[in-house]
């Protein structure tokens, strides 16, 4: 707990925090007083396996990574400074929310999902060596989820890998939507962006069926009810 407090104070001091900065620590979770965001560190075996599959310098020439959760400064530096290559990014959920904000009653059917995928995931076949999906897929409607997974099967090169997280909660349960920052090869910092309801229940069997066009799916269970998957094309 003291380690969290010390790290938080150091980070805040370097950001020139206001004088009245306070940190509330509860059950190992840091609460940023300014933004009311929960921040927690979590061990991630899925991340470790995902990173182990990536080439290391000097073989990272031409490495192309895609981040569907938007960009986080630390992750940009982790990949580009340490490994090189090119990093693509789109905040997929942000785009979905923008669509719903424009048309509140509108829902993704197959045709709408196809159009969305064509607009935001228009890339060449077998272009990416790795894709970071985080927990984005679990917050998508069924039609959009199917289309995006089908698109990933086309744009990830054979042997390339995808890291994705799925919550263990049933449909309708509210779970935290997090922004994940890589702290180390086996450690992530999860910053809660918002609480969102899970639109669909996905069992392990459902996930295996979802990724049936891929070569393999490896499951890593964690203590915080988050299933980590490393999917290999």
């Amino acid at each position, binding site marked *: 707990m003291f380690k969290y407090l010390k790290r938080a104070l150091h980070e805040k001091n370097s950001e020139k925090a206001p004088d009245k900065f306070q940190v509330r620590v509860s059950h190992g979770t840091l609460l940023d007083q300014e933004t009311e965001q929960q921040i927690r560190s979590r061990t991630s075996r899925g991340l470790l396996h995902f990173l182990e599959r990536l080439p290391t310098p000097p073989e990272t020439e031409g490495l192309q990574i895609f981040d569907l959760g938007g960009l*986080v400064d630390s992750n*940009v530096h982790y990949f580009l400074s340490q490994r090189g290559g090119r990093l*693509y*990014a789109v905040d997929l959920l942000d785009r979905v929310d923008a669509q719903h904000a424009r048309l509140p009653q509108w829902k993704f059917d197959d045709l709408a999902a196809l159009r969305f995928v064509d607009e935001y995931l228009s890339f060449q076949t077998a272009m990416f060596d790795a894709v970071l999906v985080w927990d984005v897929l679990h917050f998508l409607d069924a039609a959009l989820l199917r289309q995006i997974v089908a698109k990933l099967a086309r744009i990830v090169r054979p042997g390339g890998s995808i890291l994705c997280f799925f919550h263990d909660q049933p449909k309708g349960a509210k779970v935290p939507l997090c922004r994940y920052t890589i702290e180390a090869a086996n450690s992530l910092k999860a910053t809660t962006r918002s609480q969102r309801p899970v639109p669909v229940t996905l069992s392990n069997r459902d996930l295996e069926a979802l990724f049936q066009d891929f070569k393999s799916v490896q499951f890593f269970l964690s203590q915080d009810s988050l299933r980590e998957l490393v999917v290999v094309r």
Partner: protein
Amino acid sequence: MQPAAVPSGAQREPKTMVPPLNARPAPKAAASSARNGTRIGNSISIKGDIIGDEDIYLDGIIEGAIKLESHTLTIGPNGNVQADVSARSVILLGNLKGNVRASGHVEIRRTGSFEGDILASRIIMEDGAGFRGSIDITKPKKAQVVPSRNKPVPVHQTTATPPKPNA
């Protein structure tokens, strides 16, 4: 109307400009770059190429191309730019859609939103910044080793053997 003559040694008072309604104030740090270069306000709309040899602070609507090879481009919080940019550094507080080529760093602040490809030596992104596109980090070129003229060149001595007489 001619401005009034100002006595030598006295400073002319700056004109007070009233910003349009709903305009967001520029952060002090970013606006400071405007003091050293050119500032394009939020009521200005430009369609065309901007080529310059000084820092530029853009807070208006720009469509075209921007070339500031060895200077800094700052896009203010009200800036809405659709252009390919070539500069030393780019600081984004508003919206930029286009490709960016920077010999220095690209900084996307919390209020900034970017869509396009970035080629830069360093990128800084604040939490909350919008991004859609790709990032390529340019690596510094390795310095080529040039042999010094003063450095003595080793002389290889060989023992010459006399040719054998023909039999």
